């Protein structure tokens, strides 16, 4: 079976661009703190979600709604409503991370397919099988910390479908566990849907030297001729001991395009592209590229040469943990 390409859409226009470019599936979220890309100007209101799902379905594509932050005690209703509204909009599945919300969805929306978000950081077969048995989870998005053999080992021990990231920004910690953004800004992807929120980012350009500050901390400074990275803390430039550099991770982005055949062999069902914060131009280019790649693989043709480095953070790419060459 052809591998499923799961594409990001931060706006209805990006959703349409993804569908037209050949996305089998699009994932998106509501314009509030219930999803992990709660950025200014992004996401869908309820009417846009209904229209988006209808558009995707009319072109044979599916829509997954990410409700993947962790509900605040006392405010669960916001997250519960998001699950109900996703079902009412005709979503094909919801992507959830919190056990309470999974329990709620399994009890009150049993007909709505449940996927486990990367935010849940389920990285072994035991925990994945637990989610499947307890909450009826049908698919898990694996955290970006596993190698290909580790993914194959997981697939050998579970019936749950696996989805892995193949392109886009790299969240290098076990997802859902990172507190760097909370430390610097008080806001985190886990609770507020934002890592390094734009409201706390400041850029200064002096004579071509670009300084990026997050919550008042300078996290990197790039010279005139250097590519600019995102202002995320894990990719900041720090001094520790006698070393100065990108201590956690270089500001590069993931491209596992050449690993697609191995991922298929490892039993992976779906390939996920990161980037709900990106434009429809990005979505169309990346989706087109990956769709061509999986179709070529299915037809036994050679994989097309990728052209995606220019779209990547740091204008450089890595195979991430899949190849385990990290510091």
């Amino acid at each position: 079976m052809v591998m499923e390409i799961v594409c990001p859409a931060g706006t209805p226009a990006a959703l349409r661009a993804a569908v037209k470019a050949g996305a089998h599936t699009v994932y998106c979220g509501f314009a509030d703190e219930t999803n992990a890309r709660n950025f200014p100007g992004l996401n869908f209101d309820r009417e846009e979600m209904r229209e988006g799902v209808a558009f995707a379905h009319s072109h044979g594509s599916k829509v997954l709604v990410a409700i993947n932050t962790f509900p605040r005690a006392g405010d669960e209703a916001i997250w519960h409503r998001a699950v109900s509204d996703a079902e009412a909009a005709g979503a094909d599945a919801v992507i959830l991370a919190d056990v309470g919300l999974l329990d709620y969805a399994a009890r009150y929306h049993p007909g709505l397919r449940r996927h486990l978000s990367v935010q849940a950081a389920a990285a072994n077969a035991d925990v994945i099988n637990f989610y499947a048995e307890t909450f009826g989870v049908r698919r898990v998005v694996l955290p970006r910390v596993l190698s290909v053999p580790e993914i194959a080992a997981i697939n050998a021990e579970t019936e749950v479908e696996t989805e892995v990231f193949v392109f886009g920004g790299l969240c290098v910690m076990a997802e859902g566990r990172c507190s760097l953004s909370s430390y610097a800004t008080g806001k985190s992807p886990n609770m507020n849907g934002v890592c390094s929120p734009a409201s706390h980012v400041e850029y200064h350009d002096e004579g071509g030297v670009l300084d990026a500050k997050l919550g008042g901390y300078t996290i990197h400074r790039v010279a005139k001729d250097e590519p600019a990275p995102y202002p995320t803390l894990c990719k900041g430039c720090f001094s520790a001991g006698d070393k100065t550099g990108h201590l956690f991770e270089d500001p590069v982005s993931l491209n596992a395009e050449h690993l697609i055949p191995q991922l298929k062999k490892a039993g992976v069902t779906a390939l996920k592209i990161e980037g709900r914060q990106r434009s429809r131009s990005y979505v169309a280019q990346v989706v087109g590229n990956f769709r061509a790649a999986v179709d070529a693989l299915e037809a036994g043709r050679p994989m097309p040469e990728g052209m995606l480095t220019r779209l990547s953070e740091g204008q450089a790419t890595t195979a991430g943990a899949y190849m385990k060459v990290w510091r």
Partner: protein
Amino acid sequence: MPQPATTIPIFPPLFAAPLRTLPLAPLSVALSLYARTVAKTHPRLFRRLGEHAHKRYVLDPTDLPFAILLEPNGGAPKVHVTRRAVTGDARIAGSLAALLGMVHGAYDGDALFFSRDLMVEGDTGAALALRNAVDDAELDLSQEAARLSGPLARPLQKIFALAEQRTGVSLSRPEETTAW
């Protein structure tokens, strides 16, 4: 070296020079009228700006001798073109081609930022909201201009198409084809 998001043309200095003496008041009036027409056809753009719909944006085409102050004003936008240093809540700077290419969805804003073809200063959240709202609106500035020009619409569109072809600057929305 950062790679350009793609080859982004620079407005020819030979043509930019005469713009130094261009009267800006009528241009401001014309652009404000134009922005209001766009606002009428794209009300969702302003909803998407949310809390940023009353911010002041400085759009700075770095290869032209003026900057544009855009106030979305909650859906009744005002545009002021100026040669003087102007401050706003957020400044978005880049070549005219980069800015128009982003508006039309020909270029990705983040890729322009990585390659240093685009610079954001001030209120990053406001700048991001504007970029995302504009991206969703699928604007086609030539089409909007043609709509305003009555009987001149067709010749105007031809001129835009020719200018686009000659300069490489994206003046209209690139056609999307359905691949599958």
